[in-house]
């Protein structure tokens, strides 16, 4: 698998920690952030290909974070992660330019499938822009 850069933004520390380890284990350049602002901070210094973004977070919601991300890095692909019952926030994410949304709990294989597709689209988009 091609080594692409992934940022996980979720307020669940246990989740972020483990998934980062597992993605790195699979050869990806993965990093984690425990809040929207922290994620945005990281984005200041480094480019990412795919971002996994939790919808429901304290302080700054996933949707708000998504808006900021798209302002700064319009080309990065975002997969919304939701534990929330209503699909509305996921759909709202799509309208704001997210690649897709998945519902927690999601097995890593499934998430990886989505991430790879997102990465592929990012490559296509980049090529088109060049």
């Amino acid at each position: 698998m091609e080594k692409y850069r992934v940022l996980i933004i979720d307020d669940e520390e246990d989740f972020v920690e483990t998934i980062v380890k597992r993605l790195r284990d699979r050869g990806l350049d993965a990093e984690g952030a425990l809040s929207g602002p922290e994620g945005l901070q990281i984005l200041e210094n480094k480019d990412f290909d795919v971002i996994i973004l939790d919808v429901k977070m304290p302080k700054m919601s996933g949707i708000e974070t998504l808006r900021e991300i798209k302002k700064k890095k319009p080309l990065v692909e975002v997969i919304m992660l939701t534990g929330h019952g209503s699909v509305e926030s996921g759909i709202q994410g799509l309208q704001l330019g997210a690649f897709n949304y998945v519902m927690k709990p999601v097995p890593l294989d499934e998430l990886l499938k989505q991430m790879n597709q997102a990465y592929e689209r990012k490559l296509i988009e980049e090529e088109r822009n060049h």
Partner: protein
Amino acid sequence: MSLKHYDRLALKMIIMTLSFSLIPLFALGTTIYIQFTTAYQSKVAESAKTLAQNRRASIELFFDERIAQLNTVAQTHPIEKLKDEAFLKKIFDTLLAKSKSFIDIGVIDSQGNHQAYVGPHYDKLKSVNYAQEEWFNAVLTTGIYISDVFMGFRKAPHFIIAVTTIDNNQIYILRATINSAIIDEMVRAGQVGKRGDAFIVNQENILQTQPRFSGQLLGKPTSPDFSSSVGSTVEFVNLKNEENIYATAQIKNPKWVLVIREDVQEEMAPLFKAQFVENLIMIFGILLVVIGTVVTTRTMTRRLEKMELEKAKSEDLMVQSSKMAALGKMAAGIAHEINNPLQIIGDQAGWMKDLLDSEDMKTNDNYQEFEQCIKKIERQVNRSREITHRLLRFGRRMETTQDMVDVNNLLSETITFLENEAHYRDITIQTQYDTGLPEITTDSNQLQQVFLNIIDNAIDAVGQSGKIFVKTAQPSNSSKEILVTVQDNGPGMPKEVLARIFDPFFTTKRADEGTGLGLSISYSIIEKLRGKITVSSEEGKGTTFIITLPVK
């Protein structure tokens, strides 16, 4: 509100309405009754009085005429001539020619001896001396005298009239006997109707004429004593439970009183008839008012009761649906809270698996055991995930939403849910969708629940190898509604079942198979979505549900 409460309300309304309508009716009826009765009574009394006065006038005229005749005879002939019985006979005949009422005539001197007599009792009367008679002294003082009625020798009622005349300073009396039958005749003309009576009494209340019912001539009348009545009077007298009108008229000379009696029952008959008719109209009116009031009040309270019942039903439904919405929210909340830890558990297990896959772990004695454990954890996480996702879907379904719904898609999706069961029972679900159907604004979750209920019922109804036909249609392009038909070729339902099919808790299924709420809820939902649901069924042929939905 309880049924008793409505009965009480109805009773109150009936009493109020009846009071407001019957009291004026009674007041009016009574006023008319009293006014009319009084007016009629005074009219009857007045006419009786007038009759008495008329009769009196005739009688007085009769007396005046007779007195005038005797006066004329006395004043126009010298007493010497009148003493001549042949001459007196001639005059008597002349008087008789004018009036048959004279019986005899006589000339009496101041000593009371008959100087001349013409009449049928010549032998008896010619030699009689009247000096001691009361009337003789009376006529000498007053000049004119009319006696009371007496029977006399002929055993026929009669009376005498006597006048005085002076000749050569000598007083003579001209006396005539008069048959009182003629007075009787005149009085009898005052007897009105079948039960009316008329008679004359003297100052001692002795009957001077023969009454019809009120006693015997020269006896006391059975009527009250009117002998001292003055002028003309009229009064109502209740005697032995018989009400009578007595009109009296006093005769000047002799001092008799004419009494006319009329039977109130007879005289007032037209009034009683009018009163009877009025009472009849009153009773009919009251009956009409009562019936009208009762019917209107009943109808009103029934309607009120029905409205209240419907309100209570819809409130129940609202409470139920808000309960369900709360339950849905709670389920979704719990599911969400559990999803995060599930994600972490799953990831931790996954990470363990990743680590286990490294070379050095594979040689571990317990590698197999670890791998089994991790697989089991993953399986259980997946199982929990299924549960929480189902809970989330349930929660979503309980929320009332308004979406643009493609009914065809919704039906297809619903049928997919039921396909397994249909397939298992070898049931064919055939569809015919109108592709030109417009999207409608409605609550897709609730509508889906209705489709689910009805198609599920159809699956239960048709049984093994049955057929279900689902069809959508719009009556016309401009139509404001769309129709969804679900038809099955099951055994159908008898009329009794069909009539109760939408009732809550009505079910033909076994207790453990159905709650009897499915169609009732479906009905409520469709009503809430402002649609209609109808059902028709024929035993042995099948059942058809038609759902009409508004296009908004």
